[in-house]
């Protein structure tokens, strides 16, 4: 595996941003973890100096246990065919970040989605209104503490299943003599045995 260009990028990043944790995951994948206040200078550095001109994706991960949101940027370099994944963690209680739409205009749409689904507030983005959901007044739905089954049960009519509905897994396992793993057993309770 030839990691020459990846290591070259990692060295360049480390020279400029000393606090960045750079990991070359494999060919064409570099992961950088960084403090959140260094993200705008880092992204413009990656765009202007390291040829990562394409922002391919921008997303958010909810780390409920750590009480953090993680913002993930994926940048692509057409010159070197390398993907740079930039990660940063922000506070979950009062999630705030700055907009990066001056670097990539398409970031505005990603920010609107993250705002709607996770409730992250992007300073400088003035279009953080209603995006995909209409009239949503509950917790942002992609947060892990939002209970979607409970919400669906409270807000929508649900039709009960058939009495004779059975999981076919039990029947197949009985014929072929294979073991059902423990985690799957709760889904395959046979009603006639209860």
């Amino acid at each position: 595996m030839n990691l020459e260009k990846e290591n070259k990028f990692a060295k360049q990043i480390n020279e400029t941003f000393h606090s960045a944790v750079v990991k070359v995951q494999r060919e064409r994948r570099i992961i950088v973890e960084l403090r959140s206040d260094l993200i705008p200078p880092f992204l413009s550095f990656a765009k202007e100096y390291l040829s990562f001109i394409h922002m391919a994706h921008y997303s958010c991960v909810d780390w409920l246990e750590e009480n953090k949101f993680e913002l993930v940027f994926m940048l692509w370099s057409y010159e070197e065919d390398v993907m740079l994944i930039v990660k940063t963690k922000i506070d979950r209680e009062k999630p705030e970040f700055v907009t990066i739409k001056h670097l990539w205009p398409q970031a505005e749409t990603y920010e609107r989605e993250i705002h709607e689904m996770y409730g992250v507030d992007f300073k400088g983005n003035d279009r953080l209104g209603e995006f995909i959901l209409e009239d949503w007044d509950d917790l942002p739905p992609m947060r892990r503490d939002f209970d979607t089954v409970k919400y669906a049960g409270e807000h929508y009519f649900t039709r009960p299943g058939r009495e004779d509905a059975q999981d076919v897994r039990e029947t197949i396992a009985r014929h072929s003599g294979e073991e059902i793993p423990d985690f799957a057993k709760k889904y395959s309770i046979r009603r006639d045995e209860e």
Partner: protein
Amino acid sequence: MINDKYANKIVDIIQNFARKSSLWVVAYGTGCGAIEIPPTMTSRYDAERFGIRGSATPRQADVLLITGYLSTKTLKRVIRTYEQMQDPKYVIGFGSCTINGGMYWDSYNTIKALDQYLPVDVFINGCMPRPEAVISGFIKLQELIKEGKANGAQKYKENLEWYRENQRKVIKNWKMPDYNW
């Protein structure tokens, strides 16, 4: 005007025959099920031999085909589409999602039982139903029309309050026009 009950019966038979033989489906696809409509309509399955064909606007259509899951946002549009359609009009619920939510049973944003919000004449189950199943659903609808039993629109008018109440539960910001049919 002849006001004889046998004459009316004959008129009904002719009327139902005409209605069942030309079902125009409004070209409105919700969810993923709309992908089964092109093969149903085109040469392999050729739904037009049963008089089923697409129509451009809801005002010209007879059948509203709900193809798959309905988010609450789409439900608003579907209700408006349905209320703009002129009599006779029928609704076909297509796929598991319209029956019990299907694979979206725990989704925060899709309705689970379509018949709580709109009067459904025929359900076609499956995820997705094949074009054969779609055509068989249409034939079932034609049979109901022939017998004069496909009276979903009548049901909707009579129980409008009940349907409205259910619709308002999921559509929080209600800004819908009132039609006087």
